[in-house]
């Protein structure tokens, strides 16, 4: 029986090309959008190298000082991080670093911009970079303010032209650095590790950062396990509550959220204790479902009108011995075949689209991949919606009185 259903399904789909094409387009387009959206999200927040411990890493990227009438919000300052964020209970490691600074170099008279991030030595312990040459600088290098640097593959090409780079010198922003390591390129959207060059923060030209509560620094904290994170957040809040503020007349409170990358994307109010990340999750899941609903409703509609068109076929089949259940089976198989083909096309198209986006360079150094878990969910959902969109109209039609059906009645 199933083989017959399949045969009939394929025949019908081939003969009704317009319907088939429209449905396939709807299904595969939905899947492509879903896959691209999740690939971009994964690209930003999934635990991929160098952020291998993403699941138990939290960061401080912004801070705010405020009073009754004034508010000052910006990046965290070195003093805030150094004085209040170190040795939180349950923290395994902690690293401070600057946001990447655009600096320039003039190899052979050409002006080349490089994103330079200044870090401590712990940075290389928490984040696992892929070294293609040399090794990272150490905590000792940072303490002694040695002019050493790690650069990316692309930076090596642009500044030094050809391997090996270790042992050679690059000059940026009027400072000379000895290259100690070369790593693979880091995608721009990976905020925490991103840079095109890294050097000890102690090589900053001015010492003023040492006294700043707000400034151009960030920190990441590697927790022993996820369960330790709430305690760390609580401790940081209470330490900041007791902090001495430079201008107590205007500023009475200091906050600096310690949270995951996703939470920090979801945050709308820096003063609130929670970032309301669940809200963003719900919004995204809701959006995805809503987005999937459109082609589903469309498919149901198409199916209803198509099955109505086939009323007389249903009448004929009933007259020659098909039971209602058999007919429902036939239409469900037709839809399953359709959605399966749509899912396969959608999957292949996602691969192509993701590869094209990666190659286009819209987002520097980005590599997008299909998230197979989401692909499975996506296909399960399309199959569910697909069969559902076939079952309902089929069920309605199968209950039709055969005489009415033969007359082509649509009710």
């Amino acid at each position, binding site marked *: 029986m199933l083989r017959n259903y399949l045969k*009939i399904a394929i025949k019908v789909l081939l003969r*009704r090309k317009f319907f088939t094409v429209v449905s396939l387009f709807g299904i595969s387009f939905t899947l492509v959008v879903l896959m691209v959206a999740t690939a971009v999200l994964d690209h930003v927040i999934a635990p991929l190298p160098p952020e291998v411990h993403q699941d138990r890493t939290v960061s401080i990227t912004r801070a705010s000082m405020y009073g009754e009438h004034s508010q000052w919000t910006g990046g965290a300052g070195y003093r805030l991080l150094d004085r209040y964020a170190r040795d939180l209970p349950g923290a395994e490691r902690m690293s401070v670093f600057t946001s990447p600074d655009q600096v320039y170099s003039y190899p052979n008279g050409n002006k080349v911009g490089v994103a330079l991030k200044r870090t401590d030595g712990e940075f290389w312990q928490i984040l696992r970079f892929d070294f293609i040459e040399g090794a990272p600088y150490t905590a000792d290098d940072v303490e002694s303010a040695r002019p050493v640097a790690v650069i990316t593959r692309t930076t090596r090409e642009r500044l030094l032209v050809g391997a090996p780079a270790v042992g050679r010198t690059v000059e940026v922003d009027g400072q000379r650095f000895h290259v100690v390591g070369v790593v693979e390129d880091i995608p721009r959207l990976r905020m925490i590790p991103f840079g095109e060059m890294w050097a000890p923060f102690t090589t900053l030209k001015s010492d003023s950062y040492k006294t700043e509560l707000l400034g151009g620094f960030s920190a990441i904290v590697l927790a022993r396990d996820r369960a330790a994170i709430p305690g760390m957040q609580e401790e940081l809040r209470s330490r900041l509550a007791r902090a001495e503020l430079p201008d107590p007349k205007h500023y009475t409170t200091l906050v600096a959220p310690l949270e995951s990358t996703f939470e920090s994307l979801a945050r709308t109010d820096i003063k609130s204790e929670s970032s309301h990340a669940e809200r963003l999750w719900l919004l995204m899941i809701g959006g995805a479902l809503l987005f999937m609903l459109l082609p589903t409703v469309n498919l149901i509609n198409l199916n209803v009108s198509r099955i109505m068109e086939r009323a007389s076929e249903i009448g004929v089949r*009933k007259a*020659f011995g098909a039971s209602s259940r058999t007919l429902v089976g036939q239409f469900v198989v037709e839809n399953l075949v359709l959605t399966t083909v749509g899912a396969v096309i959608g999957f292949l198209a996602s691969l192509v689209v993701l590869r094209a986006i990666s190659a286009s360079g819209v987002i520097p150094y980005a590599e997008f991949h299909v998230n197979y878990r989401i692909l499975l969910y996506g296909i399960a959902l399309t199959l569910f919606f697909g069969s559902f969109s076939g079952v309902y109209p089929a069920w309605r039609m199968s209950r039709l009185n*055969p*005489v009415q059906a033969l007359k082509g009645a649509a009710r």
Partner: protein
Amino acid sequence: MIRLEGIEKVYRTERIETVALADINLEVREGEFVSVMGPSGCGKSTLLNLIGLLDTPTSGSVHLDGTRIDSYQDKALARMRNRQIGFVFQTFHLIADLSVVDNVEIPLLYRRMAASERRRRAIEALDRVGLASRVHHFPTQLSGGQQQRVAIARAIVGNPRILLADEPTGNLDSQMGHEIMAILKELNSELQTTVVMVTHDARLAEQTTRILRLIDGRQVN
């Protein structure tokens, strides 16, 4: 073979009530060829649909092959239609998406049967109606008379005991009509298939064993 007792069929729509059939008592013996005649709207199709278990009577009972149909359960009805009855309709009702041979195979799809056996029987049935050469055509590529012959092949492919034909020649010119009639007569005489045929054509009706006349849903003798 077919026995109707005190059949009444009333169609109720929101406002009007149509008595399509009233007080019908009828017996058709095995191997008979009965034609049903009467003006349009007198209930001929309704009668055929009741015999063919496509519709349920408002009151009265239908007996097929000695058993009274009292359970109008979907699955049991489907089985009866599949094994006992073959239909031929005025407008052919072939499925345009399927080839001739696939159309003919339809009744066999709802039985346990190997695909090759199904194909063999379908071609045999097509051969019987003289269409063995059109197996892979689609219905729209055939003339009206050829389409009706495909429909007859479909009706007889499962070797039903009863063939019900509702104005099978109504959409055909008289020559094609006679050809179809010849096929039905041959099935009746060679295979002992019981045939009930609705027709407006007195010359065709004359060739059958018995004529049943209906006026306003009642038998007249």
